[in-house]
């Protein structure tokens, strides 16, 4: 049951990304290109995506668990630290260079050809690099 709804959510997310134009790297780069031919489409996508979620968070706030019994995720501690700022900065630079973020990179994996696969493999490698760096840092932080 959990897997079925996870599959449906992933599928709806993917088709939404496809329909919205977010797998078109030219549109995403156009949104970031304020000095060039600026393309405001992404604002409509983000606005459209936030609307159902505003309702969902209100509904979620009124109940202790989700429909399948899992607790509604608690809001993480609202700490703005160097890790959050540096991570968002690196992500923003990578996003601009090619026009892909993780969701659209996966949604377009089937029709982006080999170049899309190269991006996804590099993205997975980047995630592993963070895991190794983070693990190393956490180990050094511990008393011997």
């Amino acid at each position, binding site marked *: 049951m959990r*897997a079925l*709804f*996870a599959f449906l959510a*992933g*599928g*709806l*997310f*993917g*088709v*939404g*990304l496809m*329909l*919205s*134009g977010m*797998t*078109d790297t030219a549109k995403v780069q156009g949104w970031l290109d*304020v000095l060039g031919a600026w393309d405001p489409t*992404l604002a*409509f996508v*983000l*606005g*459209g*995506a*936030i609307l159902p*979620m505003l*309702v*969902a*968070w209100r*509904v*979620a706030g009124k109940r202790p*668990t*989700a*429909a*399948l*019994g*899992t*607790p509604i995720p608690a809001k993480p501690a609202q700490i703005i630290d160097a*890790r*959050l700022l540096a*991570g968002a900065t*690196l*992500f*923003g630079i990578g*996003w*601009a260079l090619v*026009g892909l*973020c993780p*969701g659209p990179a*996966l949604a377009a994996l*089937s*029709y982006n050809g080999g*170049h*899309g696969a190269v*991006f996804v493999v*590099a993205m997975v*490698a*980047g*995630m592993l690099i*963070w895991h190794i760096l*983070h693990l190393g840092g956490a180990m050094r932080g511990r008393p011997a």
Partner: protein
Amino acid sequence: MIPADWIFGLLGGLMIGAAAAMFLLVNGRIMGASGILGGVVDGSGRGNLDERFAFLAGLVGVPAVVALVWQAPQTNLTTDPLLLVVAGLLVGLGTRMGSGCTSGHGVCGISRFSKRGIVATLVYLAAGVIAMAVARHGLGVI
């Protein structure tokens, strides 16, 4: 007259939001693409791997079927291998370091009025705009 692209953007956006709402209210999970994939990649999501794999299968597989039976949209993806590798590494590293991407911080975080989500979104947007200005209009590499 409103450009068709904006209407498709809004409709697609509503679908993205509906997917996130369903994942939250049915599965009790935050729909963040980098978090769901990252938990598989580094093993931190081993407690709910089936759910993660099912989500990723839907995210990759359903658009694949739509592209096959209907049509694949234009992607205008660069063919420069160096750009693809550098950008992919930055996106993977940055989203895990910053604990989220456009879907997690942007869609799920902003709608929850999460300070972290809002700040992260403003920072990656600003970094993206500056990187675009430098790389396209300064260096001319993209």
